[in-house]
């Protein structure tokens, strides 16, 4: 009896604290959304107005008139490209790491772990020169190429753990039934791990979606630039145009937010097996 009342108290306290923390943590973003609906007069009002008095869409219209669509599409192109290439390059070594033993296996596995820790800024200048040399500077494919060394290692870590979680007997059964290795992989392993693969793909996509440093340094043509660069233009040294900046920010954050919320189960289970257990 005493134990169950204790448990109940613990639970209630947990809920109260969680509600408090939700409010604190969600507040900055809520504030961003509220500000994006205020007129400039209300944004710069003293004392501060919390709720917009008359909700305005002027900043959203302003952002749309600045060709936000084109930046959005560029971000989609770069994101999808990064996702496809990191999955294509990562899926085979991940499978090999999970099933076979071969020379330099542990060295290569360590390389995967270490590559995901490289500071992007360290490679900025050599990347710039390299892309210039192969004439891919200021192209989408060049930017995608620049992202791959940073997204593929984490793809391998996650995928390897998903493959490890599939029992070997499943494949062996398929092999006995007359499938070859490729068929067994395509027909048995792939369908089982598809949600995990999708989650990893989304991760690579969103990496590219929010990356600022490379995208603003490697893409100089306006018609090729992505959302983070678009947003950075509103941040001036002396004056920042908060209205359109926040309206654009809301547009930019909605897709990852929705996708993450829908796929959160896979991300968390991916993290469990990917980085925690090993």
């Amino acid at each position: 009896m005493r134990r169950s009342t204790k448990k109940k108290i613990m639970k209630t306290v947990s809920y109260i604290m969680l509600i408090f923390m939700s409010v604190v943590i969600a507040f900055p973003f809520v504030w961003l959304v509220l500000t994006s609906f205020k007129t400039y007069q209300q944004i710069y009002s003293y004392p501060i107005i919390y709720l917009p008095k008359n909700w305005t869409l002027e900043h959203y219209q302003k952002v749309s008139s600045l060709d936000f669509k084109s930046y959005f599409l560029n971000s989609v192109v770069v994101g999808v490209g990064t996702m496809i290439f990191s999955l294509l390059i990562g899926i085979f070594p991940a499978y090999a790491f999970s099933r076979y033993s071969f020379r330099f296996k542990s060295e290569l596995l360590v390389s995967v772990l270490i590559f995901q820790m490289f500071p992007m800024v360290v490679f900025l200048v050599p990347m710039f020169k390299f892309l210039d040399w192969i004439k891919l500077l200021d192209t989408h494919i060049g930017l995608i190429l620049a992202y791959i060394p940073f997204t593929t290692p984490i793809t391998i870590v996650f995928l390897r753990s998903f493959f490890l979680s599939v029992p070997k007997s499943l494949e062996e059964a398929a092999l006995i039934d007359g499938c070859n290795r490729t068929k067994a992989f395509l027909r048995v392993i792939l369908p089982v791990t598809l949600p995990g693969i999708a989650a990893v793909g989304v991760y690579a996509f969103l990496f590219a979606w929010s990356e600022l440093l490379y995208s603003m340094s490697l893409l100089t043509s306006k018609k090729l630039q992505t959302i983070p660069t678009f947003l950075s233009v509103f941040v001036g040294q002396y004056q920042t145009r908060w209205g359109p900046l926040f309206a654009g920010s809301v547009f930019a954050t909605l897709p990852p937010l929705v996708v993450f919320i829908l796929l959160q189960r896979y991300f968390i289970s991916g993290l469990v097996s990917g980085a925690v257990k090993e």
Partner: protein
Amino acid sequence: MVMPYVLIIVAFVVLLLISNIVMSFSTIDGKFTFENYKAIFTDNVFYKSVFNTCIWVFGSVAGQILLGLLIALLLTQIKRGQVFFRSVILILPWATLDIVAGVMWKWMYNDMYGVLNDILVKIGLAKDYIAWLATPKMAMLAVIIANIWKGFCLSGMFFIAGIQTIPQELYEAAEIDGANAYRRFWNVTIPQLKPVLITTLMFTIIWTINYFPLIYVMTGGGPNYGTETIVTYIYRLSLRFLEYNKAAALSNILFVIVFTIAYLFTRRMAKEVAA
């Protein structure tokens, strides 16, 4: 099967690394020199940026780990509303783009029109409006707070994952032995969570060293180099001052630092993986 990875990623990274090393030992006209490293080690901003990086990493990592642990403990206590609380507390800051997080906090920190000062004064925590981003010390505190907000969700997720793997029997046994919640936390949760804690610590330390956009957007390294970290300094050297060779030298120094930290941590991990 691993060949595409070896050819594309490993070769590519090695090529970039070599290019950096060559550049750091070259003068502008391509002659061999140690000058770039000498220039770094006689540069006051370099020492300042190293010091700032230490504070930035220590503050952010301590905050993120503690907050992440607290959230994970709370979230594993409850059953109903998991999805909702996870979405609001863990996913929202994670999904926010780096640059968006930067501008959002910058606006909240605004000394006149920022909502943070208004709230602090209203609830009585501050007597007067604080000029958050105007002095080096406050600016550092401000970017660290913003970074804790942006980054604690990852350690939170690691910890949730880790806590879920702790067998329930251990808690029951401890309870039968008369351990209260506090003792159960220190004697069961923490020891069981140790491997996860170490992994998380490594990732957060390295990610924080490498994390660039937040400082870039909020302060640009200022005021008076107060928030200049090694990465923002490399960025400034290469893209503002166009001193590529000096930037390459500093990049290699940073690379050695990160590599050493990663090596110390992964040596343990790799042993376990190989076993």
